[in-house]
């Protein structure tokens, strides 16, 4: 298939394809990070993760409408405001849900799965009732669209760069929070031994609440960022949920590093195969590969060794 092209063309395509793989990687990490925090640190499976993302997307939509109507001169910067608001909105909802629902279920992690599934149905219907059943189009500031031409034939997408930058920032912040801050120490202490953590004076309830809120908040930011590359509608969250779960499972549940490694593996495999094969086949082969490896190594790529 490459015989018709010059070396320079091939080179630039490979650069762009590598870049496409990196974008996909960033998207996967961003999707999975919130879920990985909640699942890895708390053992709670949040089936409503996609709906928290879409909440962020809707917040972005309304922020853009607000800026268009009232502050058109500042429209270029609205996205940063929107991401902040998305974090707060999804985080606040997460905190409420933790208080109302999740905290009663810590001894029954499987039940959180059912309850959050119910929550996702309710949220979908609420979005549909309040925001309408159709998709909404989120308008982006002009500077975020289009691409930068590095050479004559190599172009990189600005929104791709944006997602990559955002993912890097959020990952670093989360890593610092988890492994360098006092709060992170508390979280890890609670994960390792809840009773002992409580005994040494850690307010485990508070830690749980904020961890859950953080995970949901990150989902909100992810949803906000994905308005650049995807759709915003009541059921759009469902588009991401399968990939998200696969990334987390494949990475090994309790490990942030695992999540990142697995996002990298899956995204590179998928993007390379999509280039050489057709789209549907690439997806199937990626998924089969993931399942095959999970059969051989069901605990995922990385696992935290905890004595039980």
């Amino acid at each position: 298939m490459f015989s018709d092209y010059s070396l320079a063309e091939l080179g630039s395509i490979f650069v762009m394809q590598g870049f496409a793989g990196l974008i996909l990687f960033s998207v996967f990490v961003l999707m999975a990070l919130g879920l990985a925090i909640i699942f890895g640190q708390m053992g709670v499976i949040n089936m409503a993760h996609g709906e928290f993302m879409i909440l962020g997307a809707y917040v972005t939509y309304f922020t853009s409408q607000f800026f268009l109507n009232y502050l058109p001169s500042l429209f270029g910067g609205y996205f940063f405001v929107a991401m902040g608001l998305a974090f707060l909105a999804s985080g606040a909802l997460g905190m409420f849900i933790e208080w109302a629902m999740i905290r009663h279920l810590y001894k029954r992690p499987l039940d959180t799965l059912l309850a959050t599934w119910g929550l996702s149905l309710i949220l979908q219907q609420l979005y549909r009732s309040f925001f309408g059943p159709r998709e909404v189009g989120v308008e982006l500031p002009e500077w975020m669209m289009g691409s930068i031409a590095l050479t004559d034939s190599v172009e990189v997408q600005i929104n791709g760069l944006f997602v990559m930058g955002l993912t890097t920032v959020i990952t670093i912040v989360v890593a610092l929070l988890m492994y360098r801050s006092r709060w992170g120490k508390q979280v890890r202490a609670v994960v390792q031994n809840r009773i002992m953590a409580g005994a040494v004076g850690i307010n485990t309830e508070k830690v749980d609440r904020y961890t859950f809120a953080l995970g949901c908040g990150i989902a909100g930011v992810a949803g906000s960022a994905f308005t650049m590359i995807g759709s915003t509608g009541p059921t759009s969250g469902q588009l991401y949920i399968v990939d998200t779960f696969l990334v987390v499972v494949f990475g090994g549940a309790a490990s942030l590093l695992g999540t990142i490694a697995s996002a990298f593996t899956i995204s590179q495999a998928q993007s390379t195969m999509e280039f050489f094969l057709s789209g549907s086949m690439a997806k199937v082969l990626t998924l089969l590969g993931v399942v095959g490896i999970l059969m051989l190594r069901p605990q995922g790529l990385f696992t935290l060794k905890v004595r039980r």
Partner: protein
Amino acid sequence: MKSTAFLSRSEWIGVAIVAALILVVLPLSVDGFRLNLVGKYLTYAFVALGLVMCWGYGGILSLGQGIFFGLGGYCMAMFLKLEASSVENTKIQSTPGIPDFMDWNQITALPWFWEPFRSLPMTIILVIAVPVFFAFIIGFAMFTRRVGGTYFAIITQAIAAILTILIVGQQGYTGGINGITDLRTLNGWDIRTDDAKYILYFVNAGLLLGCVLIAYFVKHSKLGRILVAMREKEDRVRFSGYSVAGFKIFVFCLAAGFSAIGGAMFALQVGFMSPSFVGIVPSIEMVIYTAVGGRLSILGAIYGTLLVNWAKTSFSESFPELWLLGLGGLFIAVVLAFPNGLAGLYQSYVEPRLGKLTGKKSDETNGALPQGSPAE
């Protein structure tokens, strides 16, 4: 503990009531259309029953029971489709004698894996064998490496998602997202007539009662007690010298087998099979039937399935735009407030009073677990 009868007296009464309900009361009280709907719901009850065994007793929550329901259903649908695609029926196609969707996808010969489904006995074997084999592979890979709990739940879910994408993607061989539609006859017997629907309803109900009895048998056998022990303290069972993985695989395969029968009966009664049953959504919905009925109650699975589906149908008829709220609320309410479902309510409110009435304590409560500490 050494009672040899495999059903206690109260369990006999329970089974008799269920049998009376689905064999006599429902057929007499609802019209043909509604009865067909009930028949459809009862096929889900097979799945719920399997989940009681593997989730309630074995402590293994599978979010992929739709896989087995779907595989069983597809096996049956493939047989029916081949029969419906006789050369005379399909002479308009460029290759007569193969299913219509294959012809649309430029396939000119029947793929090899469709061949066994030309024969009914072979199909009946495969309806059970394929899903059970699949369950065995999953179970073997997971349980021998001691994967369980939430992690197992998500992996089964991922497998369900993958299988859906596979079926949808390989539409020339599977019918794709449309599924396998327009099934007409079973060995020449038209399954679409009202009479046939009645007969299939009773066959279905009979099979379900048969599975209920099997479930009770397993529950009261030594195996059932080991399952409960395993769920409570897996390591102690392992240290006592039992092969924990082996028992888990068995109960998972049993649940898969039940689901497969349900799937096959679904294909027969409804007349088609769709990949939407294999995916995540139906798999989780089937878990909620079990949870509503009470995850430890074999008969509760049937009541739970009927109740949720009845609610779903009537909700969506009267408030089509709001039924998701009700369903979502039900999920949350059951999990938060009634973790043992209908059976739990029955045990804590109805049974004590019944006991007073008859002046006799019921000899065994379903599952023998106190409230508030359901299986992890």
